């Protein structure tokens, strides 16, 4: 990455998804929707979509992505502030509504920073350039004699003027077509530790999450949905529900057959959440369960396991695996089984909607405000400009809140009730009616030659695909779900990847780190087994398997770099004191994964004493290129360790007769304080392009734990969760 770039306005405009240069000015005036329009005299200078400087010097920066613990309301605006040479203490954040004018707002796939880093820099640099021009004009001096520093423009003579005092002139200036970005050496906020700009609100209870949104005369609604996915009701009796104090009405919600459409059901509308829940429980409903009633996840696991024990659809075939197996000195084979998972964000799905005639306003904790808007537009059949989607704080998302089925429900209830309504999912609703992380069976087979070199590698897997949510009936993994099995960074001359059939009988969706969970698990555990078969140290063996430094083509714009991969692994091992003697019953295990274009390795120290697993330490090293906020990256790695641990120890969603068997944190358990390990994080210094952070810390944890347990006990576990083995 060069330190200074000149960027023309044309490319800068295109990079935020707008059609042409002329739109910038149009955007200046449309930044606020009518309803939220700030007084004219307050908002004086809008050089572009994301920056509003007022004449009192206060600076409003727009966060176009959703805040769900990812720190994005701090990190993205801090990039603008840095380039603009603004004083961070003068900044406040305005959350964008769902609108295409902001470009892609989908807060998913660990891509907020990697998509918007350069755009945000350009936004800030543009504002700075205009303020410098304004000062130069005022002082009648050449612009290149002026610099910006901490909310002032300073002339070489020493005179200075505040940003706010330049607003009147700046707003009359043309937006520059070229701007110069800062030398990264001079960054003030980027790459440092900035606290969350919202931290006070979180600790004093004033942060407004979706669940906290209140409107005058707002009603609360809870919905009874069929226990079996896509089932419908035949008939129902609402008389008992209507007797409950606070219950106002009972109404039908249609099923909307779209990927993010409402599941449909019976809504109980009440004056408070409790009455709505009680009323919902009092409904007597006769369900038509439909064809997914046969879903039995234990039986299903047997079927997909059988499917990986026979040849599947070949998706990669390099060299000659069969020949390698025939000439092997040793063969290792394993089968891995991983269950469905639920996101279970701390804040349940919920949304407030207010349909008023032909218009609708929504307040929702959503990762995808534009998709939410689209669903509402489709449902109501009104023009897009009639629908406003406000994004609240999200009490966690993890992928669940990128599927706005709950938003459409709120709109449906509000329309019928003719007033503002908050639809609240109970925790049971959340766990029983999600978009589940896929269930998977995997079979792996590899050969070693007499020098313990891996000569052949076969990876077969079967899992219901996320594509099934968008194309009902899809029953083989999609190309992108195969990539993390077929593009592994090992030097393998003979390699085959095969996909088995796996129809989806519940809604399948993406969950934090997605396909890297099953593939990261099987590949990292299997590589450890091969090291063991070779009688070699897992670290040395793995470094050998990755092989020499090279760039590998992944069919993505960013190629992955095995040197960076080995680097994070070596650093994690060093931080964990790999190879040192540990107390009796303790063991270290490692895993390394390239995902979301980032490199992450974790070494985990566990003990198993009296058949009880304790995770003591997690040493994670991440190389995510340029870091915007070190504290956020560190926090994400700390959180990922706990998220990974929860799924390793407890994560298991099962279905019987088509219905999900778990229903709350009591039977879908989470790691708690007393089990939490010490998490040690190292962030690799890098000037490469920024890459993903929110997800790539997750997939290494479960395999590193399993490998550490093997080291501690000699027992090898191939399936999750570990609670099924009685060691948790």
């Amino acid at each position: 990455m060069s330190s200074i770039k000149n960027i023309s306005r044309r490319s800068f405009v295109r990079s935020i998804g707008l059609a042409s240069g002329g739109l910038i000015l149009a955007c200046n005036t449309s930044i606020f929707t009518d309803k939220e329009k700030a007084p004219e005299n307050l908002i004086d200078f809008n050089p572009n979509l994301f920056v509003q400087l007022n004449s009192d010097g206060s600076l409003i920066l727009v966060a176009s992505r959703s805040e769900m613990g990812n720190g994005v309301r701090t990190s993205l605006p801090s990039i603008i502030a840095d380039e603009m040479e603004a004083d961070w203490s003068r900044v406040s954040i305005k959350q964008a509504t769902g609108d295409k004018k902001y470009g892609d707002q989908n807060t998913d796939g660990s891509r907020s920073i990697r998509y918007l880093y350069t755009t945000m820099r350009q936004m800030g640099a543009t504002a700075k350039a205009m303020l410098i021009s304004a000062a130069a004009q005022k002082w009648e001096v050449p612009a290149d004699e002026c610099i910006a520093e901490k909310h002032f423009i300073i002339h070489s003579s020493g005179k200075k003027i505040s940003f706010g005092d330049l607003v009147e002139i700046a707003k009359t200036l043309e937006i520059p077509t070229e701007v110069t970005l800062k030398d990264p050496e001079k960054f003030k906020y980027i790459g440092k530790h900035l606290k969350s700009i919202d931290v006070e609100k979180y600790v004093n209870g004033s942060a407004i999450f979706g669940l906290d949104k209140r409107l005058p005369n707002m009603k609360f609604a809870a919905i009874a949905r069929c226990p079996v996915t896509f089932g419908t009701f035949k008939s129902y009796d609402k008389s008992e529900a209507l007797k409950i104090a606070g219950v106002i009405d009972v109404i039908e919600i249609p099923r909307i057959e779209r990927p993010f459409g409402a599941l449909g059901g019976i809504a109980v509308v009440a004056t408070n959440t409790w009455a709505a829940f009680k009323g919902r429980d009092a409904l007597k409903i006769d369900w038509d369960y439909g064809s997914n009633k046969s879903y039995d996840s234990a039986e299903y696991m047997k079927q997909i396991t059988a499917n990986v024990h026979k040849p599947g659809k070949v998706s990669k075939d390099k060299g000659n695996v069969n020949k390698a197996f025939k000439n092997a000195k040793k063969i290792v084979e394993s089968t891995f089984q991983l269950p469905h998972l639920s996101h279970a964000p701390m804040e349940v799905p919920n949304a407030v909607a207010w349909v008023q005639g032909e218009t609708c306003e929504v307040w929702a904790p959503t990762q995808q405000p534009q998709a939410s808007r689209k669903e509402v537009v489709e449902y109501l059949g009104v023009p897009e400009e009639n629908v406003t989607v406000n994004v609240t704080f999200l009490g966690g998302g993890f992928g669940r809140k990128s599927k706005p089925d709950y938003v459409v429900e709120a709109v449906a209830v509000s329309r019928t009730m003719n007033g503002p309504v908050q639809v609240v999912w109970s925790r049971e609703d959340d766990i029983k009616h999600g978009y589940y992380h896929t269930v998977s069976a995997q079979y792996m087979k590899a050969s070693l030659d007499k020098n313990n070199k891996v000569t052949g590698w076969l990876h077969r897997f079967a899992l219901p695909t996320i594509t099934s949510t968008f194309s009902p009936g899809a029953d083989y993994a999609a190309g992108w779900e195969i990539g993390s099995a077929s593009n592994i960074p090992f030097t393998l001359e003979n390699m085959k990847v095969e996909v088995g059939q796996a129809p989806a009988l519940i809604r399948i969706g993406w969950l934090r780190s997605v396909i890297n969970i099953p593939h990261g698990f099987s590949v990292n555990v299997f590589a450890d087994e091969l090291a063991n078969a070779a009688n070699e140290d897992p670290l040395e063996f793995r470094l050998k398997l990755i092989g020499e430094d090279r760039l590998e083509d992944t069919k993505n714009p960013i190629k992955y770099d095995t040197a960076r991969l080995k680097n994070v692994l070596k650093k994690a091992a060093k931080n964990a004191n790999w190879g040192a003697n540990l107390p009796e019953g303790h063991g270290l295990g490692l895993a390394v994964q390239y995902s979301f274009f980032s490199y992450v390795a974790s070494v985990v120290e566990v003990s198993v004493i009296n058949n009880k697993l304790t995770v003591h330490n997690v040493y994670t090293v991440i190389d995510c290129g340029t870091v915007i906020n070190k504290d956020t990256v560190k926090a994400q790695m700390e959180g990922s360790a706990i998220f990974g641990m929860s799924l390793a120890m407890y994560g298991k969603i099962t279905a019987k007769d088509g219905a999900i068997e778990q229903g709350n944190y009591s039977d879908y358990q989470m790691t708690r304080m007393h089990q939490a390990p010490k998490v040690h994080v190292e962030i690799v210094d890098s000037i490469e392009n920024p890459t993903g952070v929110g997800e790539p810390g997750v997939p290494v944890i479960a395999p590193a734990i399993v490998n550490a347990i093997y080291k501690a006990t000699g027992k090898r576990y191939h399936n999750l969760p570990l609670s099924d083995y009685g060691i948790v």
Partner: protein
Amino acid sequence: MITLQINGEKHTIDADPTMPLLWAIRDIVGLTGTKYGCGEGVCGSCKVLLDNSPVQSCVIPVSAAKGKNITTVEGENKNLQLLQESWVELNVPQCGFCQPGQLIAATALLDKNEKPTDKDIDEAMIGNICRCGTYQRIKNAIHRTVELKNQN
């Protein structure tokens, strides 16, 4: 009609006496800092102090709070305010949703234990889930609060 004393203020509300205190606080009184996470007493998001004891307000009927002092995360309590400062200093929250409950649990701990050990903290905080995984920072922030108190 039930009168609740929340953060030093009296609220007379019309609520079914079996309604969990949580929903009376959130939906009737309108203080939304106290959160709903599970509704069955297992996550701690809804914790409030009831006469200085931490309780899961989602499983306590509103009638049981009659005549007692209720403190929520919006309320005043010396340890709560000190903890909030440490929470900010260590940038504890991620999504922030569980933090009101965590802070209330930590307040109750410091109210009765001036210098908790790691084990004391584990025991006091075992009922509070953080899905974002901020446990390490929570623990550090509790220790930090104690450290600052002892300095002054």
